[in-house]
């Protein structure tokens, strides 16, 4: 009987994979549901003996089985999008059934945990430190150093917390790990627990990922004999973007409002329930089994500058070939957008690429020489974040995007610190005025004669723009966490690179900054 492999990743389901699977089953095929290859523009993608067909609809089944389908893409593993990647974290993507312990063990599963147990905690941490692995959630903090801090912290109770609150637009790598290779994440957490002496791990998953939650719960129950005495539990978020910030995530896990905590104390010393806690992103923990199985050195040999190893980059938005592309750091932004992503899906010229989600800067094509590297992006007033790229074509209105960044911050602010809570709302108002080219006259109170220090003359557009820059400065340096602190990135980058969208005629922004 023909074995037909179809992904049950949410991206494939959203494109109708279940209907295609049912059609193959009805045609007498043996349908296996596997993880996604990450070529989302081809979903639902079908794999028959290594040959790919996509994107399929139920009506295509007959032609595929007859060998006459025009949607054949040849051998999937040799597809240029796949062949060009260096897949460490996503080595199993498209190849294994997510909840099959046999598939997992047959593809090198549990080897990392086994080696960690042989090495002992200290040598395990040394291996992670040596690999150069940095936190994949966005901050890029070296994982080995965080683990060392927790390992050395006193106390019998410690926790591993996996941050799976992947709220950034353009990111879905965490979701793909949880839905496609949940055992790898569980193994990574068990290794972390072994290394720092923690007995319990929590995975905090956002409620928008019901498929990931279901897969994780099943996988955890199956994995118990492999990870015992370490325990893992899934906790479900409740729609608060800010809970992706580690301290607010910890508050949420404790059953409180997801408000940010001031640091110090570091979560590594006083984290969940006041106990030493490792908080790592899904991709960080998912990289650990590979590092332990293959050695930190092998991981460190790939990469660029101080960014070692591979990064699962997510191509999204208006891009022809959207999906997951894992490669060593150092690939340039232009290569990602054009060579790999194929340019825009609409075929219009690229206007902007937002890197790193709602808090990441908008980059113009002039930045396309930038290598994918934490330091290179930060020196270009941007950030890698969780490595999601949103491509916009020339129809994008960048002042509208800047306004959205502020309104998103206003909607999602936890309210703890003033620059973020108030600044975001004032930012929306200010950008609205700039967009309307309205200027601002003195209001009733300001016009009162006793308000000696209040300004009576109307504010001009240029003054409003300066005020916006000033507000961004305050938010950037005055906010407690990255939500308020990084919202200025999309706003200021839009203002800097596309001043015409704000009605600013001659750009002399470099001098102003």
């Amino acid at each position: 009987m023909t074995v037909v492999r179809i992904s049950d990743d949410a991206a494939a389901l959203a494109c109708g994979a279940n209907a295609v699977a049912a059609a193959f089953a009805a045609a007498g095929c043996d349908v296996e549901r596997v993880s996604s290859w990450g070529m989302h523009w081809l979903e639902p993608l079908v794999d028959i003996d290594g040959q790919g067909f996509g994107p399929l609809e139920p009506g295509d089944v007959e032609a595929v089985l007859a060998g006459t389908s025009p949607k054949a893409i040849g051998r999937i593993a040799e597809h240029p999008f796949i062949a060009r990647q260096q897949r460490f974290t996503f080595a199993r993507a498209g190849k294994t059934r997510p909840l099959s312990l046999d598939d997992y063990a047959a593809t090198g599963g549990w080897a990392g945990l086994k080696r960690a147990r042989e090495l002992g905690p200290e040598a395990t941490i040394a291996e992670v430190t040596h690999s150069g692995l940095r936190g994949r959630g966005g901050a890029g903090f070296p994982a080995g150093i965080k683990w060392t801090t927790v390992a050395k912290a006193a106390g019998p109770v410690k926790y591993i917390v996996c941050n799976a609150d992947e709220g950034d637009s353009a990111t879905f790598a965490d979701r793909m790990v949880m839905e496609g290779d949940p055992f790898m994440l569980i193994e990574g957490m068990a290794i972390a627990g072994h290394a720092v002496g923690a007995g319990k791990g929590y995975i905090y998953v956002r409620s928008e990922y019901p498929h990931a939650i279901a897969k994780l719960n099943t996988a955890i129950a199956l994995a118990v004999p492999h990870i015992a005495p370490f325990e893992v539990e899934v906790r479900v978020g409740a729609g608060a973007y800010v809970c992706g910030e580690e301290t607010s995530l910890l508050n949420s896990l404790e059953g409180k409002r997801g408000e940010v905590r001031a640091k110090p104390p570091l979560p590594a010393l006083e984290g969940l329930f006041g106990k030493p806690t490792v908080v790592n992103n899904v991709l960080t923990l998912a990289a650990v089994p590979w590092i332990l199985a293959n050695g930190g050195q092998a991981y460190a040999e790939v990469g660029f500058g101080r960014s070692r190893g591979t990064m699962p980059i997510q191509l999204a938005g208006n891009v022809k070939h959207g999906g997951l592309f894992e490669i060593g750091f150092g690939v340039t932004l232009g290569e990602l957008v054009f060579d790999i992503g194929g340019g825009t899906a609409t075929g219009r010229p690229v206007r902007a690429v937002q890197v790193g989600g709602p808090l990441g800067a908008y980059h113009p094509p002039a930045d396309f020489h930038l290598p994918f590297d934490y330091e290179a992006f930060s020196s270009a007033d941007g950030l890698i974040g969780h490595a999601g790229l949103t491509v916009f074509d020339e129809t994008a209105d960048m002042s509208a995007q800047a306004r959205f960044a502020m309104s998103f911050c206003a909607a999602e602010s936890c309210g703890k610190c003033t620059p973020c809570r108030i600044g975001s709302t004032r930012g929306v108002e200010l950008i609205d005025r700039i967009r309307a080219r309205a200027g601002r006259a003195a209001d009733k109170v300001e016009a009162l004669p006793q308000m000696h220090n209040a300004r009576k003359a109307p504010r001009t557009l240029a003054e409003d723009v300066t005020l916006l820059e000033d507000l961004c400065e305050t938010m950037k340096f005055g906010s407690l966490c990255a939500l308020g602190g990084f919202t200025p990135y999309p706003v200021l980058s839009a203002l800097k690179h596309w001043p015409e969208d704000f009605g600013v005629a001659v750009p002399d922004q470099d001098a102003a900054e």
Partner: protein
Amino acid sequence: MTDHDELDAILAAHAGREGALLPILHDVQGAFGHVSETSVRRIAQALNLTRAEVHGVVSFYHDFREEPENRPVLKLCRAESCQARGVEALAAALPDNPRVKVETVYCLGLCSVGPAAMIGHEVHGRLDVARLGALVESLA
């Protein structure tokens, strides 16, 4: 089983669990469709919290509602990636249907196949005006 018993059963199921409030609220909303004033009172008592503390948590998170929503809900993603793929035009073209609640969410993780929407646990990608309209119609 009365609502009161069902609430007590939920509370009993989570007894002794660390940081139990969010899981309890999810279960309560799952069972009753919303977190009522009566539920808040009972939960606060069971967890030895003040009603204000529980209310603070319920009102903080977008997922929890304090009033029942009897219409079917379609969650439409309007974050940047779906914007780049044209969701704002879809939202503008969507006719008002009083029998369906269309909610905005920021990101369903389907950023490469947007515009995307979710109904219950069912996900839909590559939406255009016609497909989104048909989805809303199918719920009404």
